């Protein structure tokens, strides 16, 4: 039964991906990426990674689709016709994909309990978490306690992403750059005279 579900979801993922590439209407393409995320969330549920599935469904299918739509409202709905020959990019993608698949051939079998990744620190977490941390969900005890540094780094990264978005998109006074004859000058004051004091800032 699992195999049937996996194959169905993967086929639908493939169909969705090809549709996204082929659609010229960007509104349709954005909707298809939302469907792609929702299918990925389904696939993650079959892998028992329910919390990752939550995130994928909320961020991938929900919020990022809305952000895409907000962008489309600004830039228009039709994709421009490609002006370049797609052969070279296709070749690069095929070679990269081939290299990645070749890389997976050396990997240990998927889901094998003897894999090194399951015996580095995982044994300690599984055996000791119950009386060291005392909460039933080992994933939470790893994320919040054993790997607290990593999680703090993650939310710092998310916060930094916000700072970047605000710097790029939030409106405020725009600096003016102009060439005063000898060098480029930046002025924050919209009233400032391009021929005024030159030594304010450079």
């Amino acid at each position, binding site marked *: 039964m699992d195999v049937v579900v996996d194959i169905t979801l993967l086929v639908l993922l493939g169909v969705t991906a090809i549709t996204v590439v082929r659609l010229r209407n960007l509104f349709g393409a954005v909707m298809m990426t939302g469907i792609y995320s929702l299918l990925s969330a389904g696939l993650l549920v079959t892998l028992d990674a329910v919390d990752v599935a939550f995130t994928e469904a909320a961020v991938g299918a929900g919020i990022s689709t*809305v952000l895409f739509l907000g962008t489309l409202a600004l830039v228009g709905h039709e994709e421009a016709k490609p002006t370049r020959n797609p052969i070279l990019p296709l070749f690069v993608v095929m070679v990269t994909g081939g290299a990645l698949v070749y890389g997976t051939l050396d990997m240990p079998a998927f889901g094998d309990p003897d894999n090194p990744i399951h015996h580095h620190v995982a044994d300690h977490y599984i055996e000791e978490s119950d*009386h060291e941390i005392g*909460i039933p969900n080992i*994933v939470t005890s790893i994320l919040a306690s054993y790997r607290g540094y990593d999680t703090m780094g993650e*939310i*710092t990264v998310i*916060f930094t992403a*916000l700072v970047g*978005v605000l710097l790029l998109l939030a409106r405020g006074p725009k600096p003016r750059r102009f060439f005063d004859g000898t060098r480029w000058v930046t002025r924050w004051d919209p009233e400032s005279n391009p021929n005024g004091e030159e030594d304010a800032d450079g």
Partner: protein
Amino acid sequence: MDDRVILRVGAKMLIPFILLFALYVQFHGDYGPGGGFQAGVIFAAGFVLYALVYGLGSAKQVMPPNAVYVCAALGVLLFAGVGVVTVALGGVFLDYSVLAHDPEHGQHYGILLVELGVLVTVFGVMVAIFYAFAGRRKVEE
């Protein structure tokens, strides 16, 4: 979207359950799947749905942009603050065992607080990014 009755009524019925589910994911994170990050994005998704259906103006009345920025910074501060408190109490950074007499209880308090920090930051960041995208108008040509 003032004329779309089905959308408005449907969203009004869904939003409380989405927010409640986010809180469930947050506070049940010790026992079931989920935690601060998942709860934060689900809460933000519910809020974004509200903004989409009822307009950006109504959403900003509920959650002004400045409050959202404060949320985003406050979560990181709470997380790092828990680390500083554990250092002050004689432990190492983010070792919650020193937060209570019983190390296990300390771990529980610590995890509760840092997960709350993650929730607040993720919610704030997601909504703030949505505001930044949705607030832009097309440049006149």
